[in-house]
């Protein structure tokens, strides 16, 4: 049986709260990070790494986007969005001072509790690094509570690499290893070229002590989870973040169902052993 909260949440979660755009960063030619603050004097939105919000652009539509900022700053919500269609384009075109509607936070988060005292392997592909960034923030904010941190990050090409400054800053932290690779290199890129699984041979991992969190396109997560198992991690120690069509984010519209799971409330973070058989099913 799937778990549900024991007390039904009665505040209307279908109403967006107004948030003001305070900062816009162009991460790559098609990807932008927007920093939002609540319009009224509220405490912001406390969230767990891995949770997401529904972002509403007035009259255009809503987007399910993972919260990408620092959980220690609930008044500053950061969202990294890639412009691929009407709604995403409308969102990334917001300017400083514009208002955006925010609902949330929704969903299950990354297993930070289970990760205490253990090594954490974060494997990110493309924009999959955005939902994982709060994990890294959380670990670095509470360094003593966690073991080694290894980040394996694969991007499409050098100009698609996200958060360059942070990547460099993270690499300088104690007990932290950051490895980056791209699928397509170029002369100006002096880093690694190849799919993200090729980074494993450079990762200093102790599989028995490790918990893995992976996020990226579904194909990438399939081959990454296989590689994690080859590296010696157990399925119960691997977590992935899944994605499906979402309309309500609160388990009513039915769109995000993945087998028996509602990705909006049973996910988006899932323990790999629980959904491994589903990943193999075509057109599930």
């Amino acid at each position: 049986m799937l778990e549900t909260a024991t007390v039904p949440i009665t505040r209307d979660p279908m109403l967006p709260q107004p948030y003001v755009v305070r900062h816009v960063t162009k991460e790559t030619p098609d990807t932008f990070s927007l920093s939002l603050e609540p319009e009224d004097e509220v405490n912001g939105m406390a969230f767990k790494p891995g949770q997401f919000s529904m972002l509403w652009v007035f009259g255009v539509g809503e987007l399910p986007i993972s919260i990408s900022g620092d959980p220690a700053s609930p008044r500053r919500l950061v969202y990294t969005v890639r412009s691929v269609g009407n709604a995403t384009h409308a969102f990334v075109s917001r300017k400083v001072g514009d208002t955006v509607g925010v609902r949330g936070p929704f969903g299950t988060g990354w297993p930070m509790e289970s990760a205490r005292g253990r090594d954490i392997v974060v494997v990110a592909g493309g924009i999959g690094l955005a939902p994982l960034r709060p994990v890294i923030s959380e670990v670095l904010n509470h360094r003593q509570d966690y073991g080694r941190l290894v980040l394996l990050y694969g991007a499409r090409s050098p100009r698609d690499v996200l958060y360059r400054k942070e990547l460099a800053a993270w690499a300088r932290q104690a007990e932290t290893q950051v490895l980056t690779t791209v699928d397509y290199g170029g002369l100006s890129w002096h880093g690694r070229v190849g799919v993200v699984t090729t980074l494993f041979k450079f990762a200093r991992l102790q599989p028995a002590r490790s918990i893995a969190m992976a996020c990226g396109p579904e194909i990438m997560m399939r081959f990454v989870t296989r590689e994690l198992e080859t590296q010696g991690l157990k399925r119960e120690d691997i977590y992935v973040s899944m994605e499906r069509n979402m309309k309500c984010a609160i388990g009513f519209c039915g769109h995000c169902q993945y087998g028996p799971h509602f990705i909006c409330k049973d996910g988006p973070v899932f323990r790999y052993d629980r959904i491994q058989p589903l990943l193999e099913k075509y057109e599930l």
Partner: protein
Amino acid sequence: METLERIIAEHPFFSGLESYYTALLTGCAANARFAGGTYIFKEGEEANEFYLIRSGKVALEIFAPQRKPIVVATLAEGDVLGWSWLFPPYLWKFHAHATVETRAIMLDGKCLRTKCEQNHDLGYEVLKRFSQIVAQRLDATRLQLLDVYAAP
């Protein structure tokens, strides 16, 4: 020579090989060092050797007219560079660019081919290991081809 034999024996690529074969291999081996920025080999040149990378970084590059060279893969410590010495026409298909100072064990392909022809058991051990490398690279390349991070 002794040190070289030990390095070869301990290199992950040749792990599990009987010392008799390791000795045979050592007969074809030499230390190699490439300064950063130099080309270890270029596309079209005769492929007469392969390298066990001990340190540094090698970018496999392909050149096309009117285009800057494209890096299709990077190799580093522990990787094996080059299998074109195994099959006719024994010509390199890519450029191998040592982007930083790179140390490797160079194995003489012609020498090794001859020894493998004479000793099929050695040949089997060598091909077993190379085919696994080729399979892994092929899988990784296929995944690279999927361009999973591309815009929909």
